[in-house]
């Protein structure tokens, strides 16, 4: 059997240069050595692959129609063997994706790895961040329960406040003036076709740019010290990556087991006793919209569209504004403080959104 496998390998190698390809993939020198801090990119790729696998499985039973979306999701949860697990894994996987994206971006930011010559990697990374959020937003509607319906209704009304293109964008997403079947069709096709294609393309580009520019390495240490610690991607970093992936897999599976997805009532344009709320990773934005200073037509578009857009623009411009080659985070006080402020702000807003729930009952 081994001899046969070798023959097949040699056959392929002779035609496409498999050995060289493999060597180039694995023998990437990692300046300063492998680290746990570098696992996030690989973990994200792993989470995406699992989302794709579970997503394809869900499509075997899911029916994207306003009449059947809810019932078919219930069918997956209650009738299909392990359907509850596949759906719950997909649900928790999306949360894990957002958490790890934040970790990945934070790591790159704190390490100063967005600086020259890695600006292109950073820019494509930001686009990927946008895709991840879009995945979360579009996927949320598909079960067609109250939670899904209302998060989408409000989310689309918020997009409507985008200057100039808002009205078109909202109608485009809703597929009409009000949410309905057309909305579900559009969200479905965007979630299962458009975004995955875009993500695969951009993730490939992200990796290609990353490999072209090379990893940044630690932010301190002399060239000699770094050289002494340098190793290849395989085996040490690959090993750390796979351990991290296994940990994430166990965490998501555990969440799926302990807190499986439970649908609320089927979506109706009357919320009943349900207090509409978006998924937790949008809660900080949601809470911001409750503030008086962000009330009114102008205030809303400021909080929901203009500020987030400016923040993304600032991130995109970051490598071009911050031209200081210093990468040590402890010598970049403004960067460190801004990061802390953003993170604390998000945490505080999220917690206050959760605390506000009690006030409502």
């Amino acid at each position: 059997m081994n001899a046969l496998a070798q023959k097949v390998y040699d056959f392929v190698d002779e035609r496409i240069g498999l050995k060289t390809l493999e060597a180039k993939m694995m023998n990437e020198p990692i300046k300063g050595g492998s680290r746990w801090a570098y696992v996030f990119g690989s973990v994200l790729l792993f989470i995406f692959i699992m989302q794709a696998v579970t997503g394809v499985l869900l499509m075997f039973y899911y029916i994207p129609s306003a009449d059947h979306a809810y019932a078919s999701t219930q069918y997956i949860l209650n009738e299909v063997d392990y359907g509850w697990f596949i759906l719950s894994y997909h649900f928790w996987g999306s949360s894990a994706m957002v958490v790890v994206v934040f970790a990945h971006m934070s790591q790159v930011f704190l390490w100063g790895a967005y600086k020259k010559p890695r600006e292109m990697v950073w820019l494509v990374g930001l686009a990927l961040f946008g895709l991840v959020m879009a995945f979360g937003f579009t996927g949320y509607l598909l079960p067609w329960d109250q939670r899904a319906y209302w998060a989408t209704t409000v989310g689309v009304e918020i997009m409507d406040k985008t200057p100039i293109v808002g009205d078109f964008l909202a109608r485009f997403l809703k597929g009409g003036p009000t949410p309905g079947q057309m909305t579900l069709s559009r969200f479905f096709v965007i979630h299962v076709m458009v975004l995955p294609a875009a993500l695969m393309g951009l993730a490939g580009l992200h990796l290609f740019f990353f490999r072209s520019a090379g990893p940044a390495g630690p932010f301190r240490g002399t060239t000699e010290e770094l050289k002494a610690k340098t190793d290849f991607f395989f085996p040490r970093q690959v090993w750390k990556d796979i351990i991290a992936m296994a940990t994430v897999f166990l965490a998501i599976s555990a969440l799926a087991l302990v807190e499986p997805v439970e649908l609320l009532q089927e979506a109706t344009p009357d919320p009943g006793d349900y207090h509409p709320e978006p998924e937790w990773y949008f809660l900080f934005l949601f809470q911001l919209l409750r503030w008086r200073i962000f009330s009114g037509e102008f205030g809303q578009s400021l909080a929901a569209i203009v500020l987030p857009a400016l923040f993304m623009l600032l991130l995109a411009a970051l490598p071009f504004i911050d031209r200081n080659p210093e990468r040590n985070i402890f010598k970049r006080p403004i960067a460190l403080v801004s990061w802390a402020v953003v993170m604390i702000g998000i945490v505080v807003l999220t917690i206050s959104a959760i605390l506000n729930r009690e006030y409502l009952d």
Partner: protein
Amino acid sequence: MQPQIKSKVRCTDGVAGEVAHVIADPIALDLSHLVVRVNGTERQVPMTAVSKTREDSVDLLCTSAQLAEFPVFAREDFLSSKEVEIPHLEEKIRVEPGQVFVPIPDLEKSVPRRRFFAGFTNLLAVLIGLPLIWPVLRFITKPMYAPFDNRWWKVGNISKIKQDNVGVQFIFKKSIKDSVLTREDDKSNWVVKATPEILKNIYTHGDLSFFDKNGNVIWVNKATVPYVAYSGKCPHLGCGYKWRSHKTRGQVFLCPCHLSIYDVTGKVLDGPAPRALDLLPIKVSASGEIEVIDIEYKAGTRQQDRIA
């Protein structure tokens, strides 16, 4: 054995120069020429003129006088092997990749207007895409600008309202057609039976007219009719609000999403809402049946902007 760069080149009458580069045949994946540097001039010598290749030298079949008659190496007619995509070339020719040259095909040399071709290619690509823009745009925007729905909907009977100046929810079934799919959706409205002083605060400008797309009046709410209907959609961001008792403000309409609070006349008391609750055209039959036109306005704008 293949000739190496910097190998000495021996003619039949002694050492004449050294190998500067090699030229590969991109089809045969083999060496076709050596580029020999003789007295500062690079000459292109075919492999057929080579008699023997050693570790550090190459023997030629010709004399140094004959060597000087080989054509001068024209660098502009060649590309470095790094600039062309030729699979397996590096495996076959074991010379520094940058030092291997591959001739530019003759057909390529006689293409004088490369920029024109590049421009023309792009132009054709645009011409393919251009006629698709409008049909695709029409295709995806088809349901986006549906005409207003001015039908009257029976929402319930006034006997449900037990008290004046209190919000009462009326949920009714509204049939909706999405492409070929016909569905019934629950829709929610709030009806208030207002006392005259409250009514005055609702209809501050007297009778209220409603319009269709062309600006024609479709209905007038008389300021003297005590029954008023509010659209169930919160004018802030489109959530569904409720009638709740508030700690300090008493009975109010409260939206749980972003905590907008309205009084019974629809006026904003607190929270981020940009305008009062939206009044709907309402008529009450002699038997007390309430009918409304389920007008939908865009949420989040100071002025009412009808969308459905």
